């Protein structure tokens, strides 16, 4: 029984350490980031409103953020696919994921729904549930980001 769990753990480690696992996870994250960037690049004004709903950035920084951030996402996505500049791309990926996660966590705690920028006073349970779902989703992406960072460290170590 003990041996079996140990071998399971070993199998998982082996799979995670495999170059193809690294590659596929990179591609999946890349697809996600590229997909997310397209609509924002096409509609910067709409994206500016979304940033505004988070109520964390002063208004003066909103237009530059709305114009530059989607291109960072797209470039990071393309670099993740091609494998160029991986340390920089994965570093930025983690920085972005960490920022999104913190902003979301901050707003969940203060009871702001980021879909509409509405504060949920009283028992806005459903609204809080959506926020918790977002948190879980972004938390998962963050774990994936950490895995990629670990892998890029490991890879460079061998070189």
């Amino acid at each position, binding site marked *: 029984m003990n041996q079996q769990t140990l071998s399971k753990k070993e199998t998982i480690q082996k799979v995670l350490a495999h170059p193809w696992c690294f590659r596929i996870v990179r591609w999946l994250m890349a697809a996600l980031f590229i997909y997310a960037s397209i609509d924002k690049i096409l509609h910067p004004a709409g994206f500016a409103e979304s940033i505004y709903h988070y109520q964390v950035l002063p208004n*003066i920084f909103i237009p530059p953020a709305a114009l*530059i951030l989607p*291109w960072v996402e*797209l470039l990071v996505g393309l670099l993740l696919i091609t494998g160029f500049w991986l340390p920089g791309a994965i*570093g*930025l990926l983690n920085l972005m994921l960490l920022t999104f996660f913190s902003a979301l966590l901050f707003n969940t705690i203060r009871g702001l729904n980021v879909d509409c*920028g*509405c504060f949920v*006073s009283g028992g806005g349970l459903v609204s809080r549930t959506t926020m918790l779902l977002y948190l879980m989703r972004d938390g998962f992406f963050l774990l994936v980001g950490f895995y990629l960072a670990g892998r890029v460290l490991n890879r460079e170590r061998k070189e």
Partner: protein
Amino acid sequence: MNITSQVKHLWPKTVIQAFLIILIAAGIGLGLNHFRKENLPVLGNWKPQVQSTGDTLSIDQAKKLFLSHEAVFVDARPRNLYEQGHIQGAFGLPVEAFDQYFFEFLKATPAKTRIITYCDGESCSLSHELVKMLRDQGYTNLQVLSNGWTLWQQNQLPVERGN
């Protein structure tokens, strides 16, 4: 090489690459925006668009209109929030399910009725969006009570639950 020296070794490379990526992104993003017809002004006082379209009124004005029954209040928030509590007599017309509830609203509300929309929070744009949607449907006398639900409760004005 151990992990600490590895991080030290990789750090400058990571920072330089990240910096270059941001620089390129800024160049493309700001550059394209410059040549776009409907561009976003990079500097200057940015304000959310939906916010500036609606004609707003104060809580005191809203209270007067409520007590004299001169206006119909319309709740723009999602249905579940409306059911948990809303301004007494307010109609629940969620922006997200406008089509589902609009017909009922149309039957009960003549086009010239004075309508006050509200949602919750200073930055909530749903009430402003609802004003736009109702204007498209031919309603003309529209106003927004900004941060309505919170203000209404703070002023201890009549509320009710359910449908």
